[in-house]
């Protein structure tokens, strides 16, 4: 337990943890101390001088954001002198700050505006010196309004302290100081938009939201970003039922994809009506027609070729409820265990890594972090951020394995300049030797002396590589794995049994069905006559698979976009996007997260579970779900891991039926995907079905280094 100290704030005694600032104590006491340059995500800075308080026994006013509270301290957060001092700060800012609030996107959530109002500033004692500088919009995504800037430094600090990018900095001196990039060139960064989010005034705004709405007209809806396995909770802000902005929930973090990539859901290639193939062409039809055709065809094929000739490929982009209903439909209504996900191809090897990630906010509890994947910040941006926070705020030591150079090199205690496999071999050797000197030895010393170690595990590993990592872990103390999980609801879909070998909750299927690879190969050999693909695009991933799928007698694709696979389907069913439905995700930490409906489904599209429920009804099943809540109720009763799992909590690894067992859930892609994979060093902007459809992210157009 952390030691508590007692502090008196405005006559009220409060107990706060020992390392609290005066501001923390004031907040605990419910006192309102204004701030401009302070943020809990940043180190104390003490620049704006508006949070000054009086401390008994001290001659000087103290910046409460930076000054530590001490036992017995007596603090006054308000007094005539303090109010006067705060008014002076505001008055000085208003000498230059343009009063263009009516056309400023920040109005209504501007800290300066709020404080000027709160302190009731009247006519100024000083002459205004307004200097209008036109907004600089040469950068993608972000617009900079220098004349509005109050130089609190938050943008520069968050970019450096939290993101380790350091794109913004102060230039020039005195009154001419300004926030700028190197030589004022356009932004060339990760475009996460954290600087915009943290800007207390309208100096940094986004082009996406410019003149779209006043903030007080926005309605916030809690949802989850579905771009990667981190599953950041966020708030979609809508007006007239349309998303206009996304903000991180829990004041945490969003990357470029989460904050700006939602516009992909408004892309023109969204499916808005069901379609069926008539005379070789996909033609719009009604839901009734489409579902009848699907039901009839599945029944015919079942009778003709047997139930084992039908298979279903589920998705990691759909909710737990969607996945649950999907597998239940196939297993109980169609009657086949041929249910799986292609996403298993991208799973790290081995049970430990696939399931047992540590919790991200606890990254800083580890004394050392071994990052075996240099792309962690691109694939799982939040994991990358938590590494930086751990190093910067908790003094964890980072051992980075990187054969190139990226932002993590700047914060690493040691960088091993090689590939992961070579580094792991080297570390194993170094841990059992006593030589010293080179990077590997220094890294080994750091890892060896750490009381606990976080290991960031790459997403693609061979058996041999994973074996080596385990061997290395065996030489260290208290290892927690943090696997890289590229896909959003991968964990949830596994939990829901969208996998050939297991029923929901990892009950072993008595008669396991065909896995995804077997089904894709079966399409070619004729063993599989019909596939129902929900939310995946195998042809888009590998055009060669088109040949396999074209052999199918009946292909149903249920998706939000007209994907390459949908283009060769017999029936295409338009699904609602993640922002258009209610449900839950389970992220890589096994954390249950709630999605609420922010927008109405586009056109005639419908949530996946609803489509399947109605299809099941047509085929004689009795799926009586009125809402996704009904499904969750059933999941809670069927899956013990979820029985008492509340929103925001992680299910405990010990409770998994597979705990301790050596089970491999990954699939080898060798037999179906042989093409060389082309990737880029800017995966943030360039990968994925949805990101490539985001207009906003498409404007970034950066240099990219292509790797084959």
């Amino acid at each position, binding site marked *: 337990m952390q030691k508590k100290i007692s502090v008196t704030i405005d006559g009220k005694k409060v107990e706060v943890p020992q390392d609290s600032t005066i501001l923390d104590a004031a907040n605990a006491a419910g006192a309102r101390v204004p701030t401009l340059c302070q943020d809990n995500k940043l180190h*104390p*800075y*003490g*620049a*704006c*001088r*508006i949070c*000054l308080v009086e401390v008994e026994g001290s001659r*000087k*006013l103290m*910046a409460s954001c*930076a*000054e*530590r509270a001490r036992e017995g301290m007596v603090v006054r957060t308000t007094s005539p*002198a303090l109010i*006067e*001092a705060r008014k*002076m*700060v505001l008055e*000085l*800012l208003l*000498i*230059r700050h343009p009063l263009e609030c009516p056309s400023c996107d920040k109005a209504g959530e501007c800290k300066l505006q709020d404080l000027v109002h709160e302190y009731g500033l009247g006519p100024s*004692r*000083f*002459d205004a*010196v307004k200097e209008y500088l036109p907004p600089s919009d040469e950068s993608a995504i972000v617009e900079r309004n220098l004349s509005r800037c*109050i*130089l609190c*430094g938050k943008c520069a600090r968050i970019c450096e302290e939290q993101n380790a990018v350091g794109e913004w*900095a*102060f230039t*020039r*001196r*005195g*009154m*001419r*100081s300004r926030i700028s990039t190197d030589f004022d060139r356009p932004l060339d960064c990760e475009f996460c938009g954290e600087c915009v989010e943290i800007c207390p005034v309208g100096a940094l705004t986004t082009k996406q939201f410019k003149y779209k709405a006043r903030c007080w007209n926005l309605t916030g809806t809690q949802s989850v970003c579905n771009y990667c396995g981190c599953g950041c909770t966020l708030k979609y802000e809508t007006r007239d039922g349309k998303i206009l902005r996304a903000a991180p929930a829990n004041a945490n973090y969003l990357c470029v994809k989460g904050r700006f990539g939602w516009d992909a859901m408004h892309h023109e290639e969204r499916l808005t009506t069901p379609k069926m193939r008539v005379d070789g062409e996909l033609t719009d039809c009604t839901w009734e027609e489409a579902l009848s055709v699907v039901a009839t065809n599945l029944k015919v094929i079942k009778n003709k070729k047997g139930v084992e000739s039908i298979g279903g490929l589920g998705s990691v982009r759909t909710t737990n409820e969607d996945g649950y209903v999907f597998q239940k439909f196939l297993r109980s209504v169609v009657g086949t265990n041929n249910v799986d996900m292609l996403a298993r191809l991208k799973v790290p090897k081995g049970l430990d890594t696939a399931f047992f990630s540590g919790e991200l906010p606890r990254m800083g509890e580890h004394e050392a972090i071994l990052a075996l994947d240099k792309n962690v910040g691109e694939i799982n941006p939040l994991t990358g951020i938590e590494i930086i926070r751990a190093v910067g705020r908790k003094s964890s030591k980072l051992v980075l394995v990187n054969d190139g150079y990226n932002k993590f090199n700047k914060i690493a205690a040691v960088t091993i300049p090689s590939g992961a496999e070579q580094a792991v071999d080297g570390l194993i050797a170094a841990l059992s030797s006593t030589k010293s000197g080179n990077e590997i030895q220094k890294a080994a010393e750091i890892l060896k002396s750490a009381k606990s170690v976080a290991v960031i595990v790459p997403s693609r590993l061979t058996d041999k590589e994973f074996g080596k990592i385990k061997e290395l872990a065996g030489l260290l103390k208290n290892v927690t794995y943090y696997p890289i999980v590229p896909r959003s609801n991968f964990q949830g879909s596994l939990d829901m049994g969208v996998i050939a070998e297991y029923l929901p909750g990892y009950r072993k299927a008595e008669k396991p069905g065909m896995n995804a690879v077997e089904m894709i190969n079966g399409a070619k050999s004729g063993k599989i006559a019909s596939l129902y693909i929900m939310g995946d695009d195998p042809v888009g991933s590998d055009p060669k698979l088109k040949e396999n799928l074209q052999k199918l007698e009946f292909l149903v694709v249920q998706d939000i976009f007209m994907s390459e696979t949908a283009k060769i389907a017999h029936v295409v069913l338009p699904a609602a996007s993640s922002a258009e439905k209610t449900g839950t995700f389970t992220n890589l930490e096994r954390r249950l997260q709630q999605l609420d409906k922010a927008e109405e489904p586009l056109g005639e599209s419908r949530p996946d579970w609803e489509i399947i429920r109605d299809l099941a009804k047509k085929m004689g099943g009795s799926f009586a779900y009125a809402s996704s809540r009904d499904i969750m109720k059933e999941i809670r009763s069927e899956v013990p891991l979820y029985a008492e799992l509340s929103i925001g909590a992680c299910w405990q690894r010990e409770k998994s039926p597979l705990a301790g067992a050596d089970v491999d859930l990954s699939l080898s892609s060798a037999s179906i995907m042989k093409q060389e994979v082309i990737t880029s060093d800017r995966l943030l902007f360039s990968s994925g079905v949805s990101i490539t459809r985001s207009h906003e992210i498409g404007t970034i157009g950066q240099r990219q280094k292509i790797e084959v």
Partner: protein
Amino acid sequence: METTYRSNIMICAGTSCVANGSLKIKDALAAELVKHDLQNEVKIVLTGCNGFCAKGPVIVVYPDDIFYHQVKPEDVPSLVEEHFVKGRPYQKFLYKPPTSKDTIPTMNEIPFFKHQVHRVLRNRSLIDPENIDEYIARDGYLGAAKALLEMTPEQVRDEVKRSGLRGRGGAGFPTGVKWDFSASAPGETKYVICNIKFMDRNIVEADPHSVLEGMIVAARAVNAHQGYVYVREDYPLAIRRLRLAVDHAVEKGLLGSDILGSGFEFNIEVYQGAGSFVCGEETALMESIEGRRGMPRVKPPYPAVQGLWQKPTVINNAETLANLPPIILNGAEWYTSLGTEKSRGTKVFSLSGAVNNSGLVEVPMGIPLKTVVYDIGGGVKGNRKLKAVQMGGSAGGCIPASLIDTPVDFESIMNTGAVVAAGGIEVIDETSCMPAMAKFFLEFMEDESCGKCIPCRIGSGTLRSIITRITNGEGREGDIELLEKLSQQIKDTSLCGFGQTSINPVLTTIKYFREEYDAHIKEHRCPARVCTPLIQFKVNEANCKKCGLCFKGCPVGAITWEKGKVAYIDQEKCTKCKTCIKNCRFWAID
């Protein structure tokens, strides 16, 4: 065997004398000595700043202690002939006080030097700063040796605490007490930093080893093993001499892994800063060494506990450090023999402005300001009236002529609103306008503010704009009170010492010269005739002595005058260049 010389010629090679041509004197002397075949009898030494900068180039001849000033290369042959061949001082370059007809040949008899006590500047005009042997010959590194070989860190700190030495930086914090904080702060790695303020430049140029030795003493006191000297790049000579001094000290084993066989390790790196005023602030300086923009950090934590790279750090300026070796060598009692009870020892000042003898001076603490200005400084230039003394540089304050008897010590000067530590004494005569001077300092502070905290960044510019309108004759009723109020608020709320003291020129000029501000605002008049928009350029008949000096000086022929008549200024032709005002001795132009 080394040559033994009968005479040494010490040529000042401080920045000011070099600018006045002292290196040419050196060449001329060398050539002349060869001509007389005296090169093996008379040695020429280039020293650091002698201090009497106003009279450069300056040379001193030992052992006779003869002081020559304003030497010209063409007279060098006569000087050598007279002094070194005939053996008598060469009259032409001997010092003659403004009030007397007789020359004073001996350096220590000259009033400028007579009232000084040289402890920090103990080696000035005596050694070649680039020769470590000469420093060692003057008891150099004996203090460090004693600290390392005969004393424990506690004893070193105690000695310094008992000496009462206070930091010659800003607040005058007791040096030994500051060391205690660092010494007791947890952590193995600790640092010692030497900060070089404007005036310290001459100390390090004249005697770099005294600073390095002081750093060794400080390092011993807190058990630090790495030191940094932070010098701004504008002081290239200081940087060169410091680097040379470090190299020499390392060669002699006076720096490195085992200093003088004591087992104590200490290394010094000379770090070149980009040259920003605010980098004199200790935490901004550390940010700069760490490779970031020099912006002050919020305190606490104080550097003594969490400084450079977050490690406990002792930061002292060169003057404080140069005081340490003799304190250790001679003991605290020796040090306390000079100065006042709370301000011990001596203080180095850069004496400048409207004073006859400008230069670098070192005086015992407690000496009356009057002695510094009138005896050492030789009084106000051109027999003008003393108006004020500005002490403490841009962040300092003005002391009016009425307080000229104030003793020079930390508290007495602080009570006037000025600052001792920075070491600037600027003499201001009656031709200076106080609001204009405050504006000058504010312009500097506004430019040099790092921009981090709002009161300093915007406040100093706002003060400047208010004073500007006052000096432009557009001052408003209530402006003085507004200046006072805003200054006080900036002082109370600024993040660092820079902002907190930036308002001193404003507050002290208002405190002592409020009537001048009033004259500007209410009477639209600049009493010192400095603020051009407030000058009418009309001859005041009552004051005019009809001397014609204004007429003679006017570059555009705007003035008409006849002998015995009052001059007249043609407003059409006048370009307001103020030459007439400078020439008029009788305040006859309004």
